[in-house]
């Protein structure tokens, strides 16, 4: 496959960049600024069935095409690539934790390929913490019958700028479940994207984002139903509190002419907790064949439901606690999927603390 690495600096008029504050990218898309090639992800612990290698970038050819400027830039900049391989048939009982170590605010580029052998099964958890100016190209290759649960937690410090692509190529009868949680960072723009490499494959993209004053959190799905009989589900939930909180959710789903038997549904719900906050939600479904199982999308953006708050308060629960319960409840569905008590608690506490800070809970 010929991989295009031509990189053009966006002007902001491009559809893909029109929501993003380009002046806040700290050089990540500035050709005058050099990105340092880093291996910012590493294996927290050796695990049987998992290999972690750092290879020359020329040895690890990207498995997918991209037109995303940040991705193209990463591909140009990196000298080395981390290749994580899960052996064929390996079923990992415990999660693979990947540690993030960044240059503390110096612009850097990281490229990673996670490759699952046939019929293997693994959970990969990335906890993004600290201060970073990071552009990243993460690819997942799922061989037939494999299952990957990928959990990406953006718990960055306030100043972090993070542009990332998380692209899965899903083989026959393979399953890709991704959970993206973005609560930290100044500007985070992630591209959870999916294409299929065999029938019977399935993708579930789940996400939670919570933006407070001044944060720009952008998530752009792209699901390419390029083959027959594949399935996709997208469910992202976001809340915004504080005057300049800003979120963007784009859900592009393409069902190509060849993709008969496609089954897809995407949902985005936003909860606006402050007047000055703004959530953009743009579902986009393009269908080139009618021979499908189902295709649908829904997008809602609303405020607190007064009836819910009244019901809780009428049982003696003070208004601020009622709001906290409703917000927790709103996110619970997503947090449940992480299926990890410790992470769930940590995230909920962070959300509570941030809420208290912006005073959305009065």
């Amino acid at each position: 496959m010929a991989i295009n690495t031509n990189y053009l600096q966006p002007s902001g008029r491009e559809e893909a960049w029109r929501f993003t504050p380009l002046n806040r990218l700290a050089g990540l898309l500035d050709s005058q600024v050099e990105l340092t090639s880093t291996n910012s992800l590493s294996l927290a612990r050796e695990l049987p069935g998992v290999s972690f290698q750092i290879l020359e970038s020329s040895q690890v050819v990207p498995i997918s095409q991209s037109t995303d400027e940040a991705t193209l830039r990463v591909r140009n900049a990196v000298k080395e690539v981390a290749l994580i391989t899960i052996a064929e048939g390996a079923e990992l009982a415990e999660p693979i934790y990947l540690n993030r170590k960044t240059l503390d605010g110096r612009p850097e580029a990281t490229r990673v390929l996670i490759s699952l052998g046939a019929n293997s099964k693994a959970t990969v958890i990335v906890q993004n913490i600290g201060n970073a100016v990071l552009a990243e190209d993460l690819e997942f290759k799922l061989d037939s019958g494999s299952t990957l649960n990928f959990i990406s937690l953006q718990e960055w410090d306030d100043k972090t700028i993070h542009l990332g692509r998380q692209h899965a190529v899903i083989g026959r009868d393979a399953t890709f479940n991704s959970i993206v949680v973005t609560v930290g960072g100044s500007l985070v723009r992630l591209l959870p994207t999916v294409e299929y490499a065999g029938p019977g494959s399935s993708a579930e993209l789940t996400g939670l984002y919570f933006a407070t004053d001044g944060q720009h959190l952008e998530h752009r799905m792209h699901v390419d139903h390029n083959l027959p009989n594949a399935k996709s589900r997208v469910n992202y939930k976001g809340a915004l509190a504080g005057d300049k909180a800003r979120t963007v959710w784009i859900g592009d789903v393409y069902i190509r002419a060849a993709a008969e038997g496609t089954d897809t549904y995407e949902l985005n719900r936003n909860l606006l907790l402050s007047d000055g906050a703004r959530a953009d939600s743009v579902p986009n479904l393009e269908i080139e064949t009618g021979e499908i199982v189902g295709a649908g999308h829904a997008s809602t953006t609303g405020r607190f439901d007064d009836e819910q708050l009244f019901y809780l308060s009428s049982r003696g629960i003070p208004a601020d606690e009622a709001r906290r319960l409703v917000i927790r409840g709103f996110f619970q569905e997503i947090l449940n999927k992480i299926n990890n008590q410790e992470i769930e608690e940590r995230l909920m506490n962070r959300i509570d603390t941030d809420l208290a800070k912006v005073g959305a809970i009065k």
Partner: protein
Amino acid sequence: MSTLEIKGLKVVVDADGNSKEILKGVDLTIRSGETHAIMGPNGSGKSTLAYSIAGHPKYTITGGSVTLDGQDVLAMSVDERAKAGLFLAMQYPVEVPGVSVTNFLRTAATAIRGEAPKVRTWVGEVKEAMAALNMDSNFAERSVNEGFSGGEKKRHEILQLELLKPKFAILDETDSGLDVDALRIVSEGVNRVKANSDLGILLITHYTRILRYIKPDFVHVFAAGRVVEEGGPELADKLEEKGYAEYVTA
């Protein structure tokens, strides 16, 4: 011995920018241990009365007073009213996605009692109350009212009544949507609370059926935003037979 006193209560609701007067001067006094039934045609303002006492933000009080043992209820926030001892079993209980019944009940009990109930006794208390209302224990893990059938929602309201032990309960059409067995079970629940705590009850209903289980001391006819007649239990039978024609045309 407590008294809930409603005097000359006038309430308007904002509908599409126009405010519409719904309660036109309601007078009603309930004491501990008393059961008052309110019957009246659809749209006469019964739920509005219930919500106004509980403090629903959609309703604006334009006149009159509501006091609980002399305390100004209308000056209290919604949660303060509950803490003061008022409980509203709603005609349409609200779904709260993602908040489990267990968590909700415990949070509410903690707020009302002023301290978290002891884990050991609390779990037993909830189990027992659920069993008494014939509620499957798996409701505890479900989201509040979400996907509950009409009857299940009503049982869940009475479950809260049992656990929160208020001084006064307003039951807004708790009997609607209940099958014969559920009606008996729910009524027994209400009677149990009353027997244990000298509860005062304001029971809003369209049917005399529930009054065979929960015996009213007083029956009030409600029409066009006010109480238009008062009497004993026999008044309910008369209403069932003759309807509201004489009150509505008057």
